[in-house]
């Protein structure tokens, strides 16, 4: 099982802060595609916008594979500092 977290504007637009899904074996890009199928709103915010993805709290590229138990987080480009 994997925990998928959403932050900031993405969390608000999806109206979802956390999902529990088994997505081990998928790449991060494939996971975005799969989640985007939920509806038009998810498609817009997960595919048409810039989204950063972290696996186990480290930023990763779209082709990075998700492992069993990994924590996946999706969020907009960061704006701290």
């Amino acid at each position, binding site marked *: 099982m994997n925990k998928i977290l959403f932050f900031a504007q993405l969390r608000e637009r999806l109206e979802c802060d956390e999902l529990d899904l088994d997505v081990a074996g998928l790449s991060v890009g494939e996971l975005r595609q799969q989640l985007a199928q939920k509806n038009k709103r998810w498609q817009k915010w997960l595919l048409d916008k810039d989204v950063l993805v972290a696996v186990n709290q480290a930023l990763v590229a779209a082709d990075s594979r998700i492992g069993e138990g990994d924590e996946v*987080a999706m969020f907009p480009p960061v704006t701290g500092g």
Partner: protein
Amino acid sequence: MIRVQQADFDMNQEYQALISDNSSSGAVVMFVGRVRDVNQGHQIDELYLEHYPEMTNKYLSQLERQARALWPLENVSVIHRVGPLQLEDKIVLVGVSSVHREAAFEAAQYLMDLLKTNAPFWKKEVIEGGHNRWVEANHKDTIAAAQWAEVERLA
């Protein structure tokens, strides 16, 4: 030293921390980022800073290690505030001490540039009329961070 906190920080205390137990640091650089009145064309009333708690400390600690691998640094302090902030509040401190100024200046800029594009913080502004607005990432910041890739590659 990495800290993510809601509370304000005291500059003199942080300066003392940067020079404590260390008479070899001839150079100390302290950068402070604060809430300014106008951003991206909007008048700001207040700010809310969200973060991804499990990742922020982890990333900032890694960033400190990266900086130490590139420059001979003595003490390093990164403090980032989260939660509600008001106009003129301090948001972030990057402090570096080193034997000479070149390393201190460069490392402070490096830490700030990478924090801006990689550390999971997001600003939400309360603007005129009480409306909320998520701050948009700045392309200039991405370019600034990318320029350090060559320095990292040559190290």
